[in-house]
C-alpha cells in the first residue's frame, strides 16, 4: 500500500489523443540501454534473416543501403512512458527484405549486435509497419540511438524496435527475447497498454 507523495506529479501527460494511455510527451530523445553501445564497422556489418528451415538471406551494408528506401514519419512510444511524436526516419521496409523469403513461420526473434533480442509476430513486420532504419532526422543514425541501423516497428512499444539490429530468426513458435524473458509483454501494443506479461 503506497503513500501518495503530496505535490508530486511526475511528468505532465498531454491529453490530445495522440498519446497512448500512461504516456507523456517529450521533446528529448532519451537513451536507454541494457549494455554498452556496440561498435560495428560497416565493412563487417550484415543483416541476416534465417528461416525455420535454416535458410539464410543476408545483406551487407552496401547491399542493404542500395535497396529502395522509404522516408517515414512516425510516433515513438517507449514502455518507460515517454512518447516522441513525428520522428523522421529513412530505411528499408521489412516487406522488401522478406519478399523472397519462403517461410511458414509465424514469429520472429530479432537479434542485435551486443546480444539484445526481442520477439514479435512475423505479420507485425509486414504491410508497411516495419523498417531497418539507418537515418534519423535527416542524418545517419547515431550509435547511441541504435546506429548503424535499428529495427523500427512504431506500432509497438519501442523496446521491440531493436537497436543495432543484425537480423531475425523466423520461428514456428514464439520465443521470448531479452525483456520478454523478464516480464515484459510478448506483443507490446501501446494502445492496449501491454507493458508486462499478463497485461
Amino acid at each position, binding site marked *: 500500500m*503506497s503513500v501518495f*507523495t*503530496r505535490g508530486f506529479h511526475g511528468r505532465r501527460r498531454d491529453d490530445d489523443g495522440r498519446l497512448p494511455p500512461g504516456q507523456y510527451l517529450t521533446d528529448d530523445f532519451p537513451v536507454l540501454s541494457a549494455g554498452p553501445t556496440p561498435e560495428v564497422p560497416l565493412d563487417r556489418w550484415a543483416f541476416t534473416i534465417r528461416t525455420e528451415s535454416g535458410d539464410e538471406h543476408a545483406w551487407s551494408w552496401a547491399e542493404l543501403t542500395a535497396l529502395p528506401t522509404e522516408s517515414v514519419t512516425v510516433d515513438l512510444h517507449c514502455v518507460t512512458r515517454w512518447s516522441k511524436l513525428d520522428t523522421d526516419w529513412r530505411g528499408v521496409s521489412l516487406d522488401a527484405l522478406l519478399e523472397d523469403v519462403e517461410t511458414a513461420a509465424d514469429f520472429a526473434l530479432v537479434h542485435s549486435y551486443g546480444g539484445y533480442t526481442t520477439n514479435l509476430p512475423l505479420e507485425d513486420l509486414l504491410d508497411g509497419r516495419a523498417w531497418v532504419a539507418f537515418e534519423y532526422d535527416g542524418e545517419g543514425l547515431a550509435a547511441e540511438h541504435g546506429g548503424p541501423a535499428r529495427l523500427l516497428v512504431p506500432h509497438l512499444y519501442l523496446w521491440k524496435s531493436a537497436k543495432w539490429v543484425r537480423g531475425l530468426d523466423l520461428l514456428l513458435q514464439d520465443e521470448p527475447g531479452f525483456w520478454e524473458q523478464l516480464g515484459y509483454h510478448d506483443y507490446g501494443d501501446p494502445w492496449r497498454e501491454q507493458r508486462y506479461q499478463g497485461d
Partner: protein
Amino acid sequence: MLLERRTESPSARTLVLQVDEWAGHLPGQHVDVRLTAEDGYQTARSYSLAAPPDGDRLEITVQRADGGEVSPFLADDLEVGDRVELRGPLGGWFVWRPEDPGPVLLVAGGSGVVPLMAMIRARAGVSRAPFRLIYSVRTPEDRLYAAELRRRAAEDGGLDVSYVYTREAPADSPRPPGRIRADDLVTHGWPPDFEPTCFVCGPTPLVEAVAGLLVGWGHDPGRIRTERFGGS
C-alpha cells in the same frame, strides 16, 4: 517526514528527514526515495546519506538537475511536514567503518562528495584514521559543505581537504582548471605503500578515470571502493 531544508549551493539542498524507527546506518550507505503521484505512477531515486546516524534523523543532499523528474521536486517543492517513502539503509560495500584505523583516501566528483561527507562527519571525535579528501568540482560555488570542510580540516585533526576545479578556479589557485589527473592524486592523496582504503564517488566517467589512475599508480584494486552516480 521533512523536518528542515538547508541550502548547500545554488543547485543543492540538504533535506533533514525524520524516520520512524531507524535502526542506524554506516557512512557510505544510501536510501531509495520513492515518489507516488495521485494516479499511482511511481518512480524512485537513490540518495546517499550525508551524515552519520542521529537518532531518527537522516540527511540527504539533493542536487537539482535541470529537467529532472525527481530532484527539482525534492529540492524545491517538498514542504516541511510532507512525507516521502524511503527504503534503507542500503549498500554494504561502499562503506567506511569507524573501527578501521587505516588511512583513507576520498576522491569526489560533484555530488559524489555526499557519502564521503558522511564518512568525514562520522570520523569526527571517534577515529584518528588519517583522511585525505580530493574534491573535484566545476567552480568554487559548486562546492558542497565548503565552510564545514574548512572548519573540519582545521579542527578535526588528521583531515586534509583539497579541491580540483575543472572549469573555473579561484584567482589565487596555483592549479589551472582542468580534469583530475595523476599528479593531483600524487600531490594530495596517499601513496600506495600507505595502503589506504580509497573511496571514489561521482559521475561514472570520473570514477572510472580516477580508479584507473590509482591502480596505475600502484594502489591495490582490492582497496579501491567505487560508487558511480551515472551521467557524465
